[in-house]
């Protein structure tokens, strides 16, 4: 398996390739933790080159999304292979992890989550509070 991360304006793209199982999940965990630790709050996890995902891989993504949510961030997943999509479907995590087949849709889901977050902060800051 290969993992890499690269910064884009307000988000970080994490690309994963290969088989995501108990042997390789620790490497994914390490890069996700590192990015969040360094301040990343919006992660686009690109699993298009992942051939197989086991429950431990889904578990790492759940762990990260929980942490990001608690920090006011979120993640989205791009994934096209039918067998990998099936595992997300069966696990019922498609919405929580914003799993999308098209990169544009995954980016849109992340953008939306960020706008929601920003307007919540704005409200929390006092403007329009309790008005809409």
């Amino acid at each position, binding site marked *: 398996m290969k993992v890499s991360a690269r910064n884009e304006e307000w988000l970080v793209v994490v690309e994963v390739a290969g*088989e995501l*199982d*108990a*042997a390789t999940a620790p490497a994914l965990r390490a890069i996700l933790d590192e990015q969040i630790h360094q301040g990343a709050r919006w992660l686009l996890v690109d699993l298009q080159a992942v051939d*197989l*995902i*086991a*429950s*431990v891989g*889904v*578990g790492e993504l*759940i*762990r990260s*999304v*929980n942490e990001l949510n608690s920090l006011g961030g979120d993640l989205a997943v791009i994934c096209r292979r*039918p*067998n990998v999509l*099936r*595992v997300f479907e*069966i*696990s*019922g*995590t498609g*919405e*929580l992890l914003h799993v999308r087949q098209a990169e544009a849709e995954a980016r849109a889901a992340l953008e939306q989550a960020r706008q929601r977050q920003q307007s919540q902060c704005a409200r929390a800051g006092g403007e329009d509070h309790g008005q809409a």
Partner: protein
Amino acid sequence: MVKPNEDQVLVTIPCHPRYLSVARLLVGGIGAQAGLSIDDVDDMKVAVSEAITNVMDHAYGGELTGSVVLRYRPAPGELTVEVEDTGAGFDPAKIPTHAPPAPGIEGGLGLYLVKELSDSFKVESAPGSGTKITITKKHHA
């Protein structure tokens, strides 16, 4: 009916995650010979990975010692794989596999995935007596 031992590949792997890919290679090779489709094989690869990962996580107190015994039994249009350990065992009645864990909960997904990705699966286990999981995948067009 499963044929007797003649058409069985018996494999013992060390209880270590690096052998998961080896176990899956055999699912691919033996499954293709048995006539499973690529999709069937992909699902079976995950199911078998889950069962083996459980041995590593739970059978020997999380220690990567001991080994896992795999039995691959091809038959026309189907493949059965047994995953067996001689570790801690558990009470299958206490493990719910009728629904996935709630979203946001890490863990507890393995056996549910095995059930959903296979055509039939059987758990034989009891505390102190090891565990045998038998997974069958049939050809789907």
